């Protein structure tokens, strides 16, 4: 998960780990809104 977020936001693991966990809610909301087959 951490490395995936690093790829996604182009930052280091230390930056990802310091980010608020509420960003995970945003990612899940985005995933819920994504249509099937859409990347």
């Amino acid at each position, binding site marked *: 998960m951490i490395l995936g977020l690093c790829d996604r936001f182009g930052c280091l693991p230390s930056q990802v780990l310091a*980010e608020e966990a*509420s960003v*995970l*809610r945003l990612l*899940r*909301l985005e995933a*819920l809104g994504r249509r099937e087959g859409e990347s």
Partner: protein
Amino acid sequence: MGFKRKLYSVTWPEGHALHGLEVTTKGLSIEGLVEMTRAGEEITRAPDVDAKVAAAGKLLAGFSGRLVAWNLEEDDGTPVPATAEGVADQDMQLMVDLITAWMDAVASVDTPLPSASPNGATSATAPVMEASLPMVPLSPSPSS
């Protein structure tokens, strides 16, 4: 005017065992969430009691360090302080349930879609978390 950090308020809907409890917390970092998730897993999986106790201590410390306020009361109506001592003095199972629900609320989204739930939780009983953003009442609609 000074800067106020964002706080989160977690409540539980009617029908949930924790309904009526209101918990206000500071934000949780991804690192904090990962550490607390690990501690939660250690409580159930650790082979010896010492490791379980250490993991429980980590979980309680992680939560109490972010707890700002709650309306939890003792049986005699005395408010439980929102401190490490207040948290440590509570029933362990209640705290584990509360902390687990809080961690879920921090990182997950209550989906409105009907879905199978292995642990019995549904969107109707999931905790509700909202950030404490300043709110003002909406102005009346011109059509009403």
